[in-house]
């Protein structure tokens, strides 16, 4: 805990000197005697939505002839980003509590392998799902214990766990893909449709819905924000901050294991590679969505939009015929611009 709030400290510090001068200016405009409800309709709070709308329109105009606006293509974007959206919801909690989880991608890969192997050997989708959730729970308990109890910074714990979970997935599967033939499973996770909507979308919507309610409307959510905002103060206020940190990491890993099943369902295979690099996409999505990297606030819907935004750019750039190297460059530039714009002065 020590370290995390230290982190927050330096983060704030970093933003102090200049930032101050200006935010003071804001305050000066109203009489200091009546600190009323602050004008919260700052457009910067909506940067991601505005950015999304602008980029969408640009693509709609310039990529008209390349099929960008096809329902199918839009569904593609949704499908391709749905798994990141699911992880980004849990990631919002992690980042809001001033932690970081770099192991989610590897956990997703491991979970996909375990699910596939379990289904292959038992023939039962249900047992497979349980095994997958078990992977998430086990990793989550280890991460949570090391961070919350032993107070090792989550950056290091989850970085090490990224290697460990990834290594186990490779070793269990001997680097080979493990096919999943159970269609009940693949339909429920990622391949099927419910009415007109791909199941992936249903999962993403569910995750966002649950995330929004839990973060904003439950005690747990408030305590997560308090822990991230100032862990000591939260502790003094009776929040069991260690427990909160533990749960946040546990849930993150369990959600990652579900994401692994979504990959497994969508690609009808368990493979150690599923999820590789998703930790960075998730962090980018969450931060683009307006959650501070240093904890204390969290925006579930913003994170989801952030994830879709990244997917949108990817899709548009491919349709525009750019090279992969150009895509990487443009994505980097867009992320910097978006964060710079969203940054409160």
């Amino acid at each position, binding site marked *: 805990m020590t370290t995390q709030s230290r982190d927050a400290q330096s983060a704030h510090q970093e933003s102090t000197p200049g930032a101050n001068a200006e935010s003071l200016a804001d305050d000066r405009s109203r009489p200091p005697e009546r600190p009323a409800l602050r004008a919260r309709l700052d457009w910067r709070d909506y940067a991601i939505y505005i950015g999304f709308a602008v980029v969408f329109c640009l693509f709609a105009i310039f990529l008209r002839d390349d099929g960008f606006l096809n329902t199918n293509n839009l569904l593609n974007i949704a499908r391709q980003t749905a798994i990141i959206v699911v992880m980004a919801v849990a990631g919002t909690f992690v980042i809001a509590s001033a932690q970081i989880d770099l192991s989610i991608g590897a956990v997703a890969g491991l979970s996909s392998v375990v699910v596939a192997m379990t289904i292959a050997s038992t023939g039962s989708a249900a047992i497979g799902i349980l095994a997958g959730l078990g992977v998430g729970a086990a990793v989550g308990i280890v991460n949570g214990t090391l961070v919350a109890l032993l107070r090792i910074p989550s950056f290091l714990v989850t970085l090490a766990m990224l290697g460990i979970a990834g290594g186990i997935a490779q070793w269990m599967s001997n680097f080979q893909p493990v096919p999943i033939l159970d269609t009940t499973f693949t339909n429920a996770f990622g391949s099927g449709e419910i009415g007109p909507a791909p199941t992936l979308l249903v999962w993403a919507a569910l995750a966002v819905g649950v995330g929004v309610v839990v973060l904003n409307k439950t005690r747990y959510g408030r305590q997560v924000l308090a822990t991230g905002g100032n862990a000591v103060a939260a502790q003094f206020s009776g929040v069991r901050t260690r427990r909160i940190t533990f749960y946040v990491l546990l849930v993150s890993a369990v959600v990652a294991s579900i994401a692994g099943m979504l990959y497994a369902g969508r690609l009808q295979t368990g493979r150690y590679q*599923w999820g590789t690099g998703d930790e960075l996409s998730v962090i980018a999505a969450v931060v683009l969505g307006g959650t501070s990297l240093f904890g204390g606030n969290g925006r579930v819907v913003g994170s989801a939009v952030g994830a879709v935004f990244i997917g949108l750019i990817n899709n548009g750039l491919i349709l525009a015929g750019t090279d992969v190297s150009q895509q990487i460059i443009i994505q980097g530039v867009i992320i910097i611009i978006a964060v710079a714009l969203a940054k409160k002065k």
Partner: protein
Amino acid sequence: LVACSSADSSTGASKNCDTKPYDDAIAAYSSGAVLGKGPYGETSADAGTIELTAEEVEQIRQMKATAAVVMHFSGDSWSNAQVAAINKEFDKLGVRIVAKTDAQADPAKQFSDIETALAAKPDVMVSIPSLDTTALAPAYRKAVEQGVKLVFMENPAKDFKAGSDYVSVVATDNYGAGVLGAHQMARALCGEGEVGVVYHAAEAPTNVLRQKGFEETIASDYPDMKVVESKGFLGPDWKGEGSQTVNAWLTKHPDLGGVWCFFDAPCEGAIDAARSSGRNDLAVTTVDLGNNVALDMAQDGFVKGIAAAQPYQQGLTEATLAGYALLGKEAPPFVELPSVPVARDDVAESWTKIYDVEPPSELTDALGQ
């Protein structure tokens, strides 16, 4: 101290022997038919027979067709040459490329890439499913359902049927590449000594065939040679893994005579390891005519033989077969191009033949041409 002296005491290979038997074995491969068989046991059609007449080309140009090129990764000479050839041939055929993707070795990304490429409504798609034939199959299935004609590189997606699901598969003789590597290694080591094998940890058909070709040939043809270490790599830091692993091998096996790699990047690491350990006599043979291995060979370095795939030719063939599909012309289900043995004497020529461009100036400089 022990290690320092090992460089001179254990040369592993005596370079001065009669190379004729090995040269003959290599020549025998080149003159024979390709060794590999198609995914369903097909024998290969001769790549030279895949051609379009001038009328057919004109007919295709009238169609104003579109195409998508979906790659597994880029960044090696193999994929670059493929894409260059496909571009060139499609240009000739008046086919517009509407999507060109690179999955950076991640099958999940390639899955998405296929979906995205389909949104651009191409008429044909040229793609390589070898990252994961199973996982990618549902994505390719969508292409089939959308009526997109598929031409595969290397191997088809799982359970796909030639004719109904895809047009054709154009492959390299991967097994043959391994066989050539073994003969080249034997030639460098005079048929005796210890060798190490670097293979791809993920068992895609391409990778497995190469390794099998090498190991089976060593076992059957060269009883005095022994594979003492073999290790699977995963990338993406091929060179780093190669360097560290070969370093360890050189430490453990002072008599190690040679290293064979399933493609050129890890062998660049092997060269680095040999150089820094002062093992100037280590012989390296590999698949794929990459810049660096070619240059090393030209400089009389470690690389003693290369079994080159023919990516440029392969790309042309794929694009032409896509033309077949557009015309509805009957296409052979499987075309395989032989691997080309490359040695120092013919590296410049081979370069021109394989990539259809002049060899880079460093290469000719190093050759003293």
